[in-house]
Each structure stands twice: as C-alpha cells, then as structure tokens.
C-alpha cells in the first residue's frame, strides 16, 4: 500500500524532508509513525504529536487507506 507522509516544523527538521512516499504493508497511523521513527531515529514523542489524514484531524488508531496523505504534526504551540 502506498501513502504519502508529510512532516512539519520540528519533525521536518528532524527527518530532513517535508514529504516522502511510503510503500508499506498497511495498518494504523500509529504503526506508520513507528515505522518512520525507525527510519528517522530523531522522530519520537508520538504521544504528544497529532495526526491528520487528507487534511482532516484524525487519531492514531485510524486505519490508513491506499493513497492517503498522512500529516505528522509535532507538539503544537499556537498563541
């Protein structure tokens, strides 16, 4: 299954990229994050991060679909 992963702010700097395609066996957003954290060891702290799928806020237990764009948001700090 192919998905596109996007990284923002701190995560973009930690991974050294803003976006990358991922071909994987499928599963939850949390599983994808863990897989990407193995590829990019600096990527961590999923518990405080947020995830959006196709520009909609989502949760880590959501099962991903083919072609989804998965957005990994590091801890937010608006205001």
């Amino acid at each position, binding site marked *: 299954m192919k998905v596109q992963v996007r990284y923002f702010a701190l995560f973009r700097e930690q991974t050294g990229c803003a976006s990358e395609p991922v071909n994987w066996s499928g599963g939850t957003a949390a599983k994808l994050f863990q897989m990407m954290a193995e590829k990019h060891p600096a990527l961590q702290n999923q518990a405080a991060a947020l995830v959006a799928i196709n520009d909609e806020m989502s949760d880590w237990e959501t099962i991903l679909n083919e072609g989804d764009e998965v957005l990994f*948001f590091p*801890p937010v700090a608006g205001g």
Partner: protein
Amino acid sequence: MKFSVSDTPIDVAAARLAVTDNHCGALVVFEGWIRDHNEGQEVERLEYEVYRPVAIKEGAKIIDEALDRFEVTHAMCIHREGLLELGDCAVIVCVSSAHRGAAFDACRYIIDQTKTRLPIWKKEHYVTGVSEWVNCEQCAAAGHSHGDHQHE
C-alpha cells in the same frame, strides 16, 4: 470569517468591529503578544509556521463550539504566521455577548483550544543567535496528550 490566519499585522480595531452588535453589552478581547523572554532565554523575535488547510478548518470548529457552549453572540479569532517582532500581536480573540460572564468563558475556551489543537508552531530566535522550536515541555517530558493539562 470566524477564524483566519494572517501574514500581515492584525488590525485590532477592525477585529473588534467585526463582533460589535447593539444587542451585546459585553466585548471581551484577548491579544497574545510577542514577549522578550521564555524559560530563562532572552527572545529577539518569533516565527510562526501554520498549516493553513487544517488550521482554518479546525479553528472554525473551535469558534462554532464556543458559540454552542456559551451564551455568546459573536466570536472570531485571527492568528499570525511568519516572522514577528517583540510587541507584535500574534493572536487575537474577540467575543461579544449580552452579558460579560459568557464572553469571558468563551474567549478563554477559544484561546486555550487554539493553543492545543491547531497545527501552529513557533520557533523562538534568541538574542544569542540560537533558535529552537517551542513545544509543550510537559508533553515532551511525560509523553502524554494535551488533554491532560492546561497550557498558559
């Protein structure tokens, strides 16, 4: 627009005017400004990154939630993005209602939710020349979710 993101200075007078209503006896405004220090560091300027497609949608939901939960008539919020200097207004929340209690509560709700739910990040640039992303230290230390505590 109830929630918007701006890359230019916020017009505070225009924001207040947007919630003005003769039925309302109360107007509560929260302005978040860039201050010169954070956690022992001297801050020179601040940079906001906003992922607009999600921030604008989620921000509008927060405003709608406030209008549902509290007896208020109008509510709006504008958040800045880009490079801001000391004293600049980074965020403004304006709420109007018949009576002040609901307006205070709704204003607090909107700014608290804005700080914890929207994809907005800030990078502090210190006078030392160092810069770093600000995150919730409590979250980073404990690995828990934002729902567990208040941000100030």
